[in-house]
Each structure stands twice: as C-alpha cells, then as structure tokens.
C-alpha cells in the first residue's frame, strides 16, 4: 500500500505587492460614456417629471399613448435622451481615457438630482395651480 502526496503551490500575495498583469489596460472612455449616459438619463427623467407638473400643456403633450397617460411620453423621451447621450459620449470618448473620478462624481450628482425630481413631495411643489 502506498500513499501519494500531491504537491500544492500556495501563492501568497499581499495588497501591497504589485498586481500581476491579468489583462492589458483599456481606455476608460467607453465605460465612462456608459456610466455618464445613465446619469444623464436619470436626470432627464427628473426634469421631465417636474416640467410636466409645472406646464400643463407639456403634460398633455407627453400623453402619447392615452391608456398610459403622460408617463408614456416621459419614459419615451427619457430613453431617447439616454441612448442619444450614450451614443454621443461613446463616439466622443472612443479609444480615449478620461478623468473617471470626475465622470463618476457627475453621474452620482445627476442620479441624485433625478431621484429628487421624481420624488412626489419635490415635484408636487412645482405643480401648476
């Protein structure tokens, strides 16, 4: 009877040791474009919600499909703005690297403003009397 011991290699890595090259670096422009476009889309929705509350004629115009009401126009406009923004930014930043921290901060601000704009207690303050 014999016993076979298998050799095991243990790799010890610390956070301070230099990272191995797992994959080549990529320009961050396309990623930044996708993230910022999402922020622009969220912000656009907030603006559309407030504008539809403040301007009754605009609210009526947003009702492109009567069973859904103004929400139909708001969401269609938001999606169009989102994809146009994404396409434009992706074109402008194709193959380039940008200041990712600034883009990310701008995205967070846009998303926060969008969240505020879609919160009933906020947009109702703009409701036309």
């Amino acid at each position, binding site marked *: 009877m014999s016993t076979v011991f298998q050799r095991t290699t243990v790799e010890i890595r610390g*956070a301070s040791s230099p990272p191995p090259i797992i994959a080549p670096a990529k320009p961050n422009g396309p990623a930044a474009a996708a993230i910022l476009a999402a922020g622009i889309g969220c912000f656009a929705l907030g603006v559309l919600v407030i504008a539809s509350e403040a301007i009754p004629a605009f609210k009526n115009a947003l009702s492109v499909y009567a069973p*859904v009401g103004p929400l139909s126009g708001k969401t269609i406009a938001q999606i169009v703005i989102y994809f146009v923004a994404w396409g434009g930014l992706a074109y402008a930043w194709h193959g380039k690297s940008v200041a990712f921290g600034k883009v990310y901060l701008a995205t967070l601000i846009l998303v926060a403003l969008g*969240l505020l704009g879609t919160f009933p207690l906020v947009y109702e303050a703009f409701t036309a009397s």
Partner: protein
Amino acid sequence: MALTDRELWTVIHGMLLGALFLLAFAGGLAGLYSLRWELVTPSGLRERLPRLEIGTSVMAIVAWLTVITGTWIVYPWYRAAVPTSPRSMLLADPARALWHTFGMEWKEHVAWMAPLLATAVAFVVIYYGPRLAQEPKVRQALMALFVIAFAAAAVAGLFGAFINKVAPTI
C-alpha cells in the same frame, strides 16, 4: 384555481421578474465585490467572470422587461378611467388615497432609473472583462451604481406589492 390575464401579467411583472432581479442583484454584487486581483488567481478569474457577465446582463434585461411590462401592460389597467380600477378606488377613499398620490406616483417614475443604471453596469463589466479586477475605482463605482439601481427597483417593487394588496388589479 385560475388567474385572469391581468393577474397573470401582474405576477409576471412583479413576482417572476422581481424574483429574477433580486437573484441577479445578489449574485452580481457578490461577484463585483470579490473581483479583486489580490483575492483571485487568473484561473479563478476566468472561472467567475462569465458568471458575473451573465448575472449583470440578466439583471439589466430583467430591469428593462419589468419596467416595460409594468408601464405598458399593467399600468393602463391600474389607471383606467372606470370606478372599479385600482386608481379610482384608491382616490375615492381618503384613507387610502396616499397609496396612489405618493406610492404609485413615486413608483411609476423611480423604477425607470433601474434599467439605465443596470445597463451601464453590465456594459462596463463586459467591456473591461478580466481587467476589471485591476480597476478598483471602476469596480467600486459599479457597485455603487448597482446598489442604486437595486434601491430604485426595491422602492418600486415594495410599493407595487403593497398597492396590489390594497387595491388589486383584477
């Protein structure tokens, strides 16, 4: 035991897609958190990356399907201009009107942020591939956006469940 067409679509919109979204979020967040070069070997990275790409993509697709079915299929039944629609019944009762004036009004808008943010996360995960393990700032940004997407969907999902309990779409 049977479901009407409206009940079936409400189940698809709220429970089926909602459960998928929850599962995809939990898996995606755990995958993003642990995708660090100091935690995974190159072979481990190759093993878990496809799972992360699929998880985040499924979450984005499910988020789109949820808001599209909710807005364009279920919502018209909810807001139909008849006395028996959930919206009419809620507004007719001052004790329950807030479910519409606050709950539904918030839900119908905030939900539309989730697919945009989830799509951005899925795109960046696929774009970077294994390199994401060496881009900590990008990875942390994705986790934050992923959580915001989930929070927006959670607000919408919770209000949807409560409103459907108070005034069911049947």
